[in-house]
């Protein structure tokens, strides 16, 4: 099992998982933009944020941020029904899209990190709010453009404290590089 993961590796996993979901479930074209890293506490945001947690020997969060108009477009594409405003169906579709994308990133990560667990998705919709994940201080952000709008998929991952102790006991050095 590896003890380090580079940000560009995570970005590639996000691109692969997102592309597959857009091709199979949404039938929408998708343009991937250059990825970057950013600290926790992103700028205040208006729109829909869907988050899924990762647990196990590594812990983290995957987060999808999109404007409300795009969340509606994605729900329309997924459910094949008109969605003109944010409602329970749109939020549920947003949750499931996050579940599939982050879940498939998790599956790719398991090849390097061993078994991981996935939380149920949380979806937030509002204006002028920030999200914060405790202990997560360095995010890999992959922007995408689809339907003429931009969405960000961000991921933060670090070894669980118990895993660091366990590695230390076995005189293994854990390198955490993003």
């Amino acid at each position: 099992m590896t003890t380090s993961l580079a940000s560009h590796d995570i970005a590639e996993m996000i691109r692969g998982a997102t592309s597959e979901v857009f091709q199979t479930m949404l039938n929408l074209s998708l343009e991937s933009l250059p990825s970057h890293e950013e600290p926790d506490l992103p700028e205040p945001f208006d729109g829909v944020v869907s988050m899924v947690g990762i647990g196990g020997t590594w812990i983290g969060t995957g987060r999808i941020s999109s404007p409300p108009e795009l969340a509606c477009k994605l729900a329309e594409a997924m459910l094949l029904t008109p969605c003109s405003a944010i409602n329970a169906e749109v939020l549920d579709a947003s949750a499931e899209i996050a579940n599939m994308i982050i879940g498939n990133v998790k599956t790719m990560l398991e090849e390097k990190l061993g078994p991981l667990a996935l939380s149920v998705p949380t979806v937030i919709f509002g204006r002028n709010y920030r999200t914060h994940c405790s202990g997560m201080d360095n995010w890999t952000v992959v922007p995408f453009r689809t339907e003429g709008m931009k969405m960000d998929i961000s991921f933060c991952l670090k070894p669980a404290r118990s895993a660091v102790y366990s590695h230390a006991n076995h005189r293994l050095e854990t390198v955490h590089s993003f």
Partner: protein
Amino acid sequence: MSLDVLIVDDSAAIRKILHRVLMQAEVPLGKVHEANDGMEALEKLKGEKVGLILSDINMPNMDGIELLGKLKADAALKSVPILMVTTEGSHARVMQALELGANGYVRKPFTAEQIKEKLTGIL
């Protein structure tokens, strides 16, 4: 003879998509029942007889693996074909489901054709 189906998934969006795929598939579809999780599925199965179950794995209250174990331990339900449709890609979890008696497995995201192909093999 029509085929009644139970779809078990905590996502209403996925239940809706699977319902649509079933209507397009070449199966003599009867009633389609839905449940949010394994617990609700077992409740529904007390009053309804189904010929096929499509179930997610990762769900609150009772996950798909526990549901599968309970179905296979029930003499009245153990022969109902079960297709797992899930984001769970962990080899160990998939093998666990198949060893417990799941008849097939489709990973999300899926195409309608993948579901239809599996159904053809199961039914």
